[in-house]
């Protein structure tokens, strides 16, 4: 287990380095200086060149990357945006918890509901429960998240006033307003992954239930509860892998959800940063997302190793 963890951790750090380098190259491949945003379209070539020199944008990309990585490694400082003059660390502190909360709640809801639905669907195969669960799964993967978000805003914010049409209310302003502000975004974010994990749980569990060892376990008089745990432990391996990937993907989908629900989280900050050619912000946000993605997969691997000790032994 320890060996597997170290191997995966090493791979994760390597992946982070590669992603950070690619980010540098890609963000600086945009055919114009961010000075155009800061100084406006009327800025002269001389003004733009001076801006680039002052901010080190005239250095080779590798040199810029080296400076950034060194600063980050030595001080933990993501830098300061030369477009908005904002400190990146402060921006992370302001926006990351918002996105993390929405994604985490959506993930937990999606996982719990989907595993329950998938299990019911498999155990009661070809029953009404199964058909209902499969219908939910099909709808969940078929309905575009942005469309669902707009429909929910129209139905529950504009027409009925049950929820606010957008925005994020901090928990310090009250638990109920806070929950109301994140309910629709979390629901919209969770529905696709709920469907995917439900389908995965069902198919995986059906496969396990048809195995000889499950028939043997049943024949040997295993109690219902223990039988369920036994089946689920074997069926959850691919589900955990999918869930780990889904957690990372949710940060990507959060970009659309935050945009539609006008939530000032990290995904929305990324979109603004792209529009404003704010290199530091793009780098910072994508790095944070990559770290989350890599960590989620690391955790999924560890859970899988715990569920199936043969994986750890094989490593």
């Amino acid at each position, binding site marked *: 287990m320890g060996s597997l963890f170290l191997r995966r951790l090493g791979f994760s750090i390597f992946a982070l380095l590669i992603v950070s380098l690619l980010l540098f190259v890609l963000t600086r491949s945009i055919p114009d200086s961010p000075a155009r945003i800061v100084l406006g379209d009327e*800025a002269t070539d001389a003004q733009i060149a001076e801006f680039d020199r002052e901010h080190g944008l005239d250095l080779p990309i590798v040199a810029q990357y080296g400076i950034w990585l060194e600063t980050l490694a030595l001080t933990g400082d993501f830098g300061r945006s030369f477009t908005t*003059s904002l400190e990146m660390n402060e921006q992370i502190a302001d926006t990351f918890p918002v996105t993390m909360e929405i994604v985490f709640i959506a993930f937990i809801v999606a996982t719990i509901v989907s595993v329950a639905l998938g299990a019911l669907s498999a155990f009661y195969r070809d029953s009404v429960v199964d058909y209902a669960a499969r219908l939910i799964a099909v709808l969940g993967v078929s309905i575009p998240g942005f469309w669902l978000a707009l429909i929910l805003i129209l139905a529950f914010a504009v027409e009925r006033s049950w929820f*606010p049409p957008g925005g994020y209310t901090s928990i310090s302003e009250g638990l109920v307003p806070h929950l109301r502000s994140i309910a629709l975004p979390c629901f919209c974010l969770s529905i696709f992954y709920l469907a995917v994990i439900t389908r995965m749980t069902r198919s995986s569990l059906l496969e396990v239930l048809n195995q000889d060892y499950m028939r043997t376990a049943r024949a040997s008089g295993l109690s219902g509860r223990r039988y369920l745990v036994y089946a689920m432990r074997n069926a959850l391996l691919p589900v955990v892998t999918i869930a780990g990937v889904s957690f990372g993907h949710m940060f990507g989908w959060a970009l659309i959800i935050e945009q539609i629900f006008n939530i*000032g989280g990290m995904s929305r900050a990324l979109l*603004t940063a792209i529009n404003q050619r704010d290199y530091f912000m793009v780098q910072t946000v994508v790095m944070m997302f990559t770290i989350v993605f890599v960590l989620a997969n690391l955790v999924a691997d560890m859970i899988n190793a715990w569920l199936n000790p043969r994986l750890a032994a094989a490593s």
Partner: protein
Amino acid sequence: MRFTDGVDRRTMLKIGAAASMATLAGSWVRNAKATADGTLTVALTDNPVTCDPINMSSHDSMIISQTIWENLLEFDVDGVLKPQLAQALPEVSADKLVYTFDLRDDVVFHNGQPMTAEDVKYSFEYMLDPAHKASRRPIFNRLSHVEIDSPHRVRVVLKEPYSPWVYFLTKHMGIWPKGSRDELGEDHFKMSPAGVGTGPGMFEEWKPNDYVSLVRNPNYWQKDKPSWDRLVVKIVPEDASRVAYLLTGDIDLMGAPPARDFAALKKRDGVEGETRGTFGGWTVFLMNNKRPPFDDVNFRKALAHAVDRETIAKRIYYGLVEKSAIPAPASSWWFNAEADKSLDYDLDKAKFYLKKSKYAEGAKFELMTNAVPYLLDAKDCVVFLQSEFAKIGVTVDLRLAERAVISPAMLKGNYEAMFRNIMSPGEATYFLSQNFLPDQFMSKVSGFQHPRVVELMKIVFAENEQDKLKPVFDELMQLLADESPFVWVGYFNATNLWRERVKDFKASRGLTMNVRDVALG
């Protein structure tokens, strides 16, 4: 296979139902509408990059800079130049080189310090100093210096006659206390400009990607204004979200509503709306005259005659664009009806000019436009243009691009054709001088140069009276129609929607929303 032992069906269903209902937590609670307090909430589409007027590029975001800072003159919502911090419009010397302003003596900055001529001189000199890298400095580079006659009288001295500068300052300048820039630094003006303006709103807070808030200036020189206690400028990029905010009352006022929904939205209960032509918003088909096939004036005129502006204005932009074939809004004093008519929609004329051109057999070019809309979505319009040009045998390849790609390509002349909506201060000369005079920041957009245009612009710069300017503009408009360096489609409107509690609001012909004069019901 059925599972019935251990955990019964009812228990399993309860677990599933409970987990599902968890996703709807809070849905029983009703939303309290925005209360009718003293807060005016305005929604914008773009996240501002700065609050500083000398570096502000977004005409939407100027609501922030123009509420914090003021200028000697203002461009009012009807497009009329009026005194603001000056007592009256300036006296202009006979040689058109000296503009004398008498300043108001009842103006104090947000920090309590009275405004004097020293502050005006300091503000202009700061902006004009190349070391301070004000992005708007190039449009003021014909200004020489500012002289002080008395504590409340200044003279702005020009290097050469240049009448439009008084319009430009209304958008791209501000007056701040003497020494404040050096004392507080650039970031203060950019991100948290407390204490340095004279306007009706005083900076309170900027939460990036969320809102900028201002509070009422209790010492504002217009004693009964503003009527709001707090102004929240909220950033809501999505059209649908902005509309939802308005309908639920979470915002009071919005700009740039979706064109196709505007007419229906303004009829909704509790919602009002207005759309008015701007004096500076080009809806334009840009052509690089240095590149084929646009290097032939007959080809350019063929395209100019092939554009059905009426359909674009009415059907594609739902009346939110005022059609015009020349660089003048139909409602402006410098509009030349004959020049406009000379480029009417006529496919026979289009085919005639195409045949006269060296591209008589037809031509093919790439037409770029913004993937993400700026001010108005252009994507439907370029598809329409593609089909219109196909009728005369011209093939168009459409290409969508981000602003990060499209703006530099335009300014450097690295493109063939573009369709864009672009905004300038609401007067006649800004785009003309920037596009068609040599060595301006937009000179490479068309690559078009004409000695008579240069002569006419020089005459325009040296004259302040509309009566004398009209014949000059008539000639200029006809010349530009004859040469068609661009194909002008029209001028887009300033369009706003607001809740009925907002009284006395008018859409501004300068596009930027003016919230100083509104009252809250």
